[in-house]
């Protein structure tokens, strides 16, 4: 009975460790591209006759099985296949620009958006101040009707 429990425990541990390894390999594989030119994530490349993906996946599995740290594994792949093996640009040097620009440009656009609105409102205020005189009665009526339209157009 004890032997059975022990065997089950060991088997359970091995299976759990294997599942963890497989998951880690999959996660790491999603950070890499197949270098056959298909532009696909390494774990997704299924090109028939692809001479790269099978070997790369095997190498990845081996490194994960050796419990090599993730950074080291990624670095090893970069050294072997070049920086094009990375699925996303690294956050170092000029490549930082890849990540920064999609944030900076919308922020600049947002600033311009508010600046444009500010100018429009300023221009509208000047136009109103320099426009022909409007009687208080007419202005009140216009405001009343603008309010009405607002409700109707919603």
């Amino acid at each position: 009975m004890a032997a059975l429990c022990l065997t089950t425990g060991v088997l359970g541990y091995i299976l759990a460790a294997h599942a963890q390894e497989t998951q880690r390999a999959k996660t790491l594989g999603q950070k890499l591209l197949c270098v056959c030119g298909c532009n696909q994530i390494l774990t997704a490349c299924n090109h028939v006759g692809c001479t790269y993906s099978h070997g790369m996946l095997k190498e990845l599995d081996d490194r994960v099985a050796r419990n090599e740290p993730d950074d080291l594994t990624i670095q090893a792949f970069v050294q072997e296949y070049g920086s094009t093996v990375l699925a996303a640009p690294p956050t170092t040097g000029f490549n930082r620009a890849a990540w920064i620009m999609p944030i900076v440009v919308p922020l600049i656009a947002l600033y311009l958006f508010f600046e444009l609105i500010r100018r429009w409102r300023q221009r509208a205020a000047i136009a109103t101040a320099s426009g022909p005189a409007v009687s208080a009665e007419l202005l009140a009526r216009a405001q009343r009707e603008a309010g009405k339209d607002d409700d109707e157009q919603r």
Partner: protein
Amino acid sequence: MDIFGSFALILAFLAAVYAFAAGIAGAITRRPLLTRSARHSGMAVFGLVTLAVASLEYFFFTDNFSMAYVAAHSNRALPALYKFAALWAGQEGSLLFWSWLLSTYVFLALFVNRNKHPELMPYAGVVMAGVQIFFLTLNNFVASPFGVLGGPDASGTLRLAALGDGHGLNPLLQYPEMVIHPPMLYLGYTGFTIPFAFALAALLGRYPGEKWIHITRRWTMIAWCFQSIGILLGAHWAYAVLGWGGYWAWDPVENASLLPWITGTAFLHSVMMQEKRGMLKVWNIWLVFTTFMLCILGTLLTRSGVISSVHAFAQSSIGNWFVGFLALVFIVCFWSYWLNRDYLRSDNTLDSLVSRESSFLFNNLILLAACFAVLWGTLFPVLSEWVVGNKISVGPPFFNKVNVPIALFLLLLTGVGPLLAWRKTSFDALRRNFAWPVIIGVVSGIVAFIFGFREIYSLICLILCVFVTLSIASEFYRGARVIAARDGSNILAAIGDLTMRNTRRYGGYIVHFGMVLIFIGIAGSAFNKDVQMEMAPGQSLAIGPYTILCQNFDRVANNNFESERATLEIFRDGRSEMMLYPERRFFLASEVTETMVAVQSKPLHDLYVVYAGRSPETGKPVIHAYQNPLVKWIWFGGIVVVLGTGLALLPNRRAALVLKPVTEQSWGNAVAKGVSPIGAIARSSDAHD
């Protein structure tokens, strides 16, 4: 016959040149005869390019392998449908096909407006002819599809050589969707030429008002709709053929098709501000210009080999032509804008930040941010290589990280925009319109979280989808309730009536709902599962609720391909549910092997099975199975988008007016009696959109 096709193309080129020159002369001298002859010449291009296309198709169907293009892209055993589609399988043929679609659009635009807009049409005709000249130059002098095999013999006489059989069509293209996906995409790309031509013409001719927008609204929507269909069919093709379990890989060519679609979407929204309020004139003109230039950029990316892609055509020097054309288009656009910028002054300004106008403006901003992010990621490898001499890859992790938040924000605006009024929305109105959609959206998010829905983006997406759906539903309900109360009809009939009275507005809402469905489908991808296993007959693997039992592997063959096929029995909860037959086909003519995926698609998930070949180590067949949730919603959402666009293209049904005689009264009397002439006029007009 090859001379016939070449001759037709040369004539088409000359006709386009004449349409261009006579159009300019007609616009300057204002002589109707010149303008008319330019128009007729522009229309004749269509007939001539049609003859060239028909001639090339004839070569395909008669297996004329002395034609280089036919020999490279067809073979005798190729099914007739694919022989027809082989027209656009390669560089030369697809450019001819592009020219033909463009000439079809130009013909229709010239014909429909033949007796309209005499001030605008000559300019528009010139711009359209200019674009045609560029593509016909490529067809005639750079990438002619009518090249023949052979060469001069010793005596200098040209000797034709014919192959016994052709090399066959690229196996990836031998799939029914590939017969319609490229035409749809090309119809989108080429279709944006028409709004571009009218926008540039209006600017050059200083054509007053928003007329060019009214003229081109439907053309833009048609092009946008085709582009949407093309993108979705492409995604479906990638899903069903490439066999990697997904539908969008952020490949440069996929991105290239997305860019003009994004700016086109922005234009379709911002154009309403110009129509309603006379605002954003500069913005709209540049959105149309940008959309057209992105279409050309997309073609450049596909054909120049600047960026590596599985979709790209062979690398060639043709890219330089596109770079030159793109530069020329930009110079002409900028020059026209600079000369006529005073004509583009806004009539109105923004009254409030909480208004329909500001939501459109914001939506445009976000769409352009998305466009920039996609373009930046697509071109960054080239930029990086140019700046630091180090080529890097920009793959799905980058695009997902950058674009998912932007897309979710856009989804939010899809729900917010319709609930805001033009000019200004009061706080009361905001509370009234937003309360229930927001509350129900948040509650559904909480419920989903409790039931284990922990993926953050998918959770936000779910909340927003519920919010947008309710905001759209409330728009229909509020309008229909008024009609139902007044006419005594039931609410469903009232919804139909309401929709047909303002097809553009309610068709637009249906398009938004289609986008919601697409977002739901995309959110499902966060829960994809996959299992790969070497399987001998009798073995089984489990994925989700399914057990896949391998029954056997066999070989089937026909004249076109030989196939190795797996026969799989699918069990669900212990009961046999279906059989699936994933294959690997070896195409005899091209000597290329491809996968044929087996998919069982259901509303909640797809079971997607790939026969991934034999393991190099053990020689055993490998089966890769995926359980992809909610993918069907994407295709269904696409259908809804198309239906909504179709509805928005229909003319409004006018409400029946019953006139009753009134005694004439002065403005002053009307005001004194509390009847508002201004309000009456405003209410009788089409206040929505």
